[in-house]
């Protein structure tokens, strides 16, 4: 299949357009079928993926604006492969677990369009194409949060949109500038990332461009101090919106750092290692504490997302194979775990109309199955060994240990803080006497919810015990990435830093 990547991108969009013609009562099944096919297609891609090849595979190239080197350029490597798989998988799961009744057709079609943009972001190799999908993803999310959300949904949706839009416009200026620099250096226009990767930039230019790209990515991740839109968006979004936002949309930011910032601006990345790590650690500790103080279960998970994204950033800016590889693994695992947690919150919200902790208590007696699944996800979120959360977190921290043991020690608070706020949450909601008599009659998980959650539980355990299927292809591409960074860096000190942080496991 030569055009498998294009098919992956446009199949959901095409299905969404046809979805207008499907009757309202059948639209759910239609959407689940479409996303399942999409997931199978992405699995097919994985089967045909050459694990030994570290470069781009299945590339496609069609010039769009030949005069200025803007093209339709796609490709996939070990870094993006699992993000694409996670995207198609989580979209499918979120639609299976969908319980929304209002305007179901509009919602489902919007989700399908959103899937197109998300897959597109991870596959685009042309910078302008990347930007197109990146911005376009805001629109469906705006609609999902704004139309199906809670009371302050419009405020939350507009805040989300404007925040990210502003950041990305600055990034666009950076991209266009870099395109111009490429033109000056080579005499040709090109916005292809592969071409840009050949470009060696002077250090001060790297700094400015790093800052421009940083603004776009950091707001999306979100990193402290740009995280304030996220709790609102999560707090107001419907379950499916939160699942997709936490599982996939946030990963676009961290993916951007790996795909663009590191190889394009290696020296700047080296000089920003410690500042980025400090921001990440502030995120880990501060939002971890904020999460502890929340009354709303969903807010706890929203803040824990910010906290975990901090660990991912930390892993990326370790600039070594372990750290970056671990952060990619953590992106996938956080996608699965946080998605599952938001679905679980949605379950009790559907039943009781509230998600405040003090309304619950003793749920373990009434809903044993629910409590079990929640417990497993909680452990994965905390990062218990033999769950999916452990591998990524451990590797990211291990990677950064080579940079600074002290900062890594501080970042290790994530496990302690995570355990504190999650276990307190679990204690308050599931143990003790049933405080609220209404809760005595709550039904346990329904068949639909089980079928959405069981695959997630399976993955949490399976990949926790046996992470190799993901780590291996990731490893190859990351090794190449680090090599590119090493070769492209202009300052000898940055070369030395990259070399020294990449010496884990070597004989001293």
């Amino acid at each position, binding site marked *: 299949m030569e055009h498998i990547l294009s098919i992956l991108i446009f199949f959901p969009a095409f299905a969404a357009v046809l979805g207008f013609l499907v009757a309202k009562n059948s639209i759910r099944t239609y959407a689940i079928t479409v996303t399942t096919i999409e997931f199978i297609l992405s699995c097919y891609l994985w089967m045909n993926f050459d694990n030994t090849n570290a470069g781009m595979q299945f590339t496609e190239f069609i010039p*769009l604006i030949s005069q200025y080197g803007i093209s339709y350029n796609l490709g996939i490597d070990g870094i993006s492969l699992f993000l694409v798989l996670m995207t198609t998988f989580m979209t499918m799961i979120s639609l299976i677990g969908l319980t929304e009744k209002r305007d179901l057709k509009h919602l489902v079609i919007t989700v399908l369009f959103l899937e197109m943009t998300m897959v597109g972001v991870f596959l685009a190799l042309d910078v302008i194409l990347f930007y197109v999908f990146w911005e376009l993803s805001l629109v469906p999310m705006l609609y999902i949060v704004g*139309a199906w959300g809670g009371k302050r949904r*419009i405020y939350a949706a*507009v805040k989300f949109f404007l925040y990210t839009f502003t950041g990305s416009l600055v990034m*666009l200026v950076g991209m266009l*500038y870099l395109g111009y620099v490429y033109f000056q250096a080579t005499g040709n226009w090109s916005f292809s990332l592969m071409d840009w990767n050949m470009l060696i930039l002077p250090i001060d230019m790297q700094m400015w461009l790093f800052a421009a790209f940083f603004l776009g990515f950091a707001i999306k991740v979100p990193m402290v101090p740009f995280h304030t839109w996220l709790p609102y968006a999560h707090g107001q979004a419907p379950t499916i919106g939160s699942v997709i936002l936490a599982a996939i949309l946030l990963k676009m930011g961290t993916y951007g750092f790996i795909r663009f910032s590191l190889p394009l601006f290696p020296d700047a990345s080296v000089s920003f290692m410690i500042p980025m790590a400090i921001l990440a650690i502030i995120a880990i500790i501060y939002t971890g504490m904020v999460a502890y103080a929340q009354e709303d279960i969903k807010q706890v998970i929203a803040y824990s997302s910010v906290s975990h994204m901090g660990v991912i950033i930390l892993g990326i800016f370790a600039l070594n194979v372990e750290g970056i590889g671990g952060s990619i693994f953590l992106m996938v695992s956080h996608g699965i775990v946080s998605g599952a947690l938001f679905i679980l919150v949605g379950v009790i919200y559907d039943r009781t109309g509230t998600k405040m902790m003090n309304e619950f208590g003793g749920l373990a007696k009434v809903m044993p199955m629910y409590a079990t699944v929640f417990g497993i996800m909680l452990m994965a979120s905390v990062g218990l060994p033999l769950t999916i959360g452990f591998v990524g977190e451990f590797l990211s921290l291990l990677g950064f240990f080579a940079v600074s043991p002290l900062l890594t020690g501080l970042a290790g608070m994530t496990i302690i803080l995570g355990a504190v706020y999650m276990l307190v949450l679990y204690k308050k909601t599931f143990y003790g006497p049933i405080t609220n008599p209404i809760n005595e009659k709550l039904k346990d998980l329904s068949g639909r919810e089980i079928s959405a959650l069981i695959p997630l539980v399976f993955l949490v355990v399976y990949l926790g015990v046996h992470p190799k299927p993901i780590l291996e292809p990731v490893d190859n591409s990351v090794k190449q990435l680090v090599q590119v960074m090493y070769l492209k860096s202009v300052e000898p000190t940055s070369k030395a830093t990259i070399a020294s942080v990449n010496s884990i496991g070597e004989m001293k």
Partner: protein
Amino acid sequence: MIEPISISLEELNIPTLLPMMVAIIGALVILCIDLAVKNLHKSLYVMLTILVLIIDLGTVIGYSGMTRGFFDVMLVDGIAVLTQIIILISSALFVLLTLSQQRFHEYKYPEYFALFLFMVAGFQFMVASDNLILIFVGLETASLALYTLIAMHNRDKSTEAAIKYFTMGALAAAFIAFGSMIFYALTGSIELGQISASLVANDFANYPFILLGVVFILGGLGFKLSLVPFHTWAPDVYEGSNSALAGYMSIVPKIATFVVALRFFEIFISVENRWVEVILYIIVVLTMTIPNMAALVQKDVKRMLAFSSISHAGFVMGAILVGTSQATEGLFLYWILFAFTNFGAFAMLWINRSKNSYGYSTDHPFEKFAGFVKISPVGAVIMGLFMLSLAGIPPFSLFWGKMFLLSATINADYIILALIMALNSAIAAYYYLKLIVYMFLKDAEQNNFVKFMENSSNSTKTLVGITVFLTISTVIYIDPLLEVISTYVQISGY
């Protein structure tokens, strides 16, 4: 005794006048038909106007390369041809909008269409000349016709708008005349090419006077382009005129004036005249920013769009400031794409125009559109699409224009200006979103019996369909479009 003037017919090069003559004769024909047969339906005049515009377009496309004619006052170069094409196509699209469902006062008069053609001829004269007098005459012909067209809408606000526009326009005309006079006094010529040569030869002697002339001309053109601080008339005039005409006014008169501004400021930008650049820089930044802020607080969609189109004009004025050939290409690309999108947006307002005010104080308050998606999903999606495009969300049309212009700005090392542009786009996104929020996210108000799409007819729907298609599919046709633009721009040497 006056010497007899002997000029051969070939030297006059009468064909350069042909496009304008077509429009003028067409207008006269419409008037004659009205004299002969009374009470004809407006559709006849609409179709006649379109036919005239098509013939006009044919004569325009016939030209290629530089042609001067008619005592050297006509200058038909690449950008003149390109701009006339834009003017004629936009005009033809506009005329289609008059075939609306509801009957409006002004379309009963055939004079409306005659005036319209006179106005088109005026704009054509403006762009196809580098003679300040002819530019002035063209500008006035067009403007006087336009004032009348606004006033014919026959509501209190329209008369107010027309008078306001007329007074402001008269002042602007005086400014241009005065500015031209200063340049004539300084250089002894009213042709931009010779003014430029003479100024450069004297190394910009009498600089204060030159600056004074620049300020007057800038003031005059600024009124027409609604640049800050000469923009105050725009929202009121847009509100007073009918939506279709407001859409037209936000596009065609401006592109014509942009070309004049381009020809005029080229004299100074090409030699990097510092103070003129500073003045322009300030005006560009103000024009982008201030209307953006004003648009945030508007309660009526039409006024919001009026402010937004001022801000877009500021963007494009930036291209003139940058002055590279890529920027000039960007100017045309931006304006063509903006024309489709903005036209579509105003056409949607026009389609939703109703004779019943439903108790609102203006025609198109935001509240009126609450819950639009529940009542007419297609209408809401189309309107939303235009808003997204205006906000510069890829891959819709205006994103490409914005990207191209930003790129041109960056390539000319105006990084700060590019950042200001980017941040302004972010601010602008808020007010475009506001309409989307009303249409998609809010429920209709209680006791709201607003009927949507009341004014739609097949021809207006077709027009909206065309603009929607052009807005979505930009990515497909942008490459050939750019090629056409760059050929035309390059043969005229900008």
